[in-house]
């Protein structure tokens, strides 16, 4: 649904080759915006699709960009991997202007991507997709034994938590001591 093309930088994105298609063309020409992730691949997305994201919707409402300005200034999401942003854009396009179904079959199935997807969706404030993702996370432990839940969700034991906490305190102490020594050196 969305088109992508390798961009060179966020300031000068490459022109996307095709526009998203819609079965029933709207009477009023739709506005489009551009987003890119860590990989700088620019995605052209309609304002309607981007309405799913409260973050982007808020940005758009405040900008009042023309199409040209939007092309020249894609929204950079450097903290989101390109393939994850692609999934998000695809989902937003698939659900543009539609009520979201109770069971979403368009969610990505790869569990290894789910964590990054959840973080991205949370950052972009896409409430409905976040709800689906959270259900998917819960489904991972359906009918699983406590040992399996621990393993799948990587829950540390109390002993591991305590060891990690001790380690963090130790590290913080060392850092503080280093800063004090550096400050004393500067004073001399």
């Amino acid at each position, binding site marked *: 649904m969305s088109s992508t093309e390798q961009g060179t930088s966020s300031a000068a994105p490459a022109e996307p080759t095709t526009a998203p298609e819609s079965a029933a063309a709207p009477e009023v020409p739709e506005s489009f915006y551009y987003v890119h992730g860590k990989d700088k691949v620019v995605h052209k997305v309609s304002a309607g699709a981007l309405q799913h994201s409260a973050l982007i919707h808020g940005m758009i409402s405040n900008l009042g960009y023309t199409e040209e300005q939007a092309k020249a200034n894609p929204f950079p999401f450097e903290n989101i991997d390109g393939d994850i942003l692609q999934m998000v854009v695809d989902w937003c396009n698939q659900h543009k202007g539609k009520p979201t179904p109770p069971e979403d079959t368009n969610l990505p199935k790869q569990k*290894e991507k789910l*964590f990054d997807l959840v973080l991205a969706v949370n950052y972009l404030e896409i409430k409905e997709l976040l709800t689906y993702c959270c259900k998917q996370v819960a489904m991972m432990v359906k009918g699983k*034994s*406590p040992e*399996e839940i621990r393993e799948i969700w990587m*829950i540390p034991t109390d002993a591991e938590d305590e060891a990690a906490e001790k380690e963090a305190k130790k590290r913080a102490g060392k850092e503080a001591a280093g800063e004090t020594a550096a400050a004393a050196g500067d004073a001399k």
Partner: protein
Amino acid sequence: MNFQEALDFSGLQIQKQYPKKHKFPLLKLPKVVLLECIENLDVLEIIPFSLLSKRAKTIAKLICWSPLDICFRFNRTLQICLKLSTDPDRKWIINYKTNYKTEKYPYYIFEKSDSSVSHHFVLNDNGNPAEDSKRMVEHICDVFRSPISDFHIFDESFIEWIINFQPIIRNVLIPNYVVRSIETLDRILKNLKVTENFHLGSIKTDEKYTEPISSRSVTIKDSFWITLPSIINGTNSIIYLYNSIFTPNDLNTILKEWRMGIKLRNLEFLVINISTMLDWGRFTDEVFKDLNPTESNKNVGRPTKVKIDDEITYTLGEEEEYVNLIRSDGMIGSVFNEYAGNDGEKIFRRFMLQVWRRQP
């Protein structure tokens, strides 16, 4: 295996049977997202999750779960039965089993009938199910911020525990011969406030008990040890006494006290099973002495069903024979005397008093 190993899953090591791609570092999520994920868990998934570590329990407690009805009971095995008051047909049951040593513990069972759905989480009892189940109940009450609503004291060792853990409780059931003395019974009744239903099985004693029992509803099997002051000075609404040794004269006293309106003011329904040597005429003469009851008119609005507790409703059909007593506040006491058999010498009777008000 001790409780730590059996139930406190914080000691379990990750067995690394899942490939990395199937793993999800849940605790690295932002807190709001993490909580939304956890909110999607079923009751029997929240419990094992919250037992995995102190941190997991803290997270589980951050969510405002719907309050649970917690029933701690003995039904062939120790069981913790959980349900939501908003969805009483769905139950989550934690079972402690000893008989299936070959099963892989813990495991889940799903049961469905026409009217209800039960999800079972089966744990091996590991030799000390009483202690394990107490710890589990404490944990569940803590995580779900819900009190125990129904408790079966199926062993004397549970008495001190429940008095200390939760001295106010909705329903209590004590099976036969768990209480072995009036002292123990007195300790329970003085330290455990039962707000709704108190069911007591047979107890081994030669002593009598004279104190009132404070629950709204009281059901006592083999109630030979209970005395008239316990009943008359109580504030119970429902009283059900099996195998009582009350005499017809005692029943007459109860009726008189009720009609005077100072005692037994909350009474809605009283059933006393007694045995007597008196024939029907002499029996009723003694029970109604100086009371002048009036013959009942059928279909005058007397309720035909009395709710004893959450599960039991007693039906008093319209065709039953009864007489009425009227109290000064307009309340009607319908008195039923039923023949309940004989042993050749004694006649068994079921004496019932139903209190109701005629609707305008």
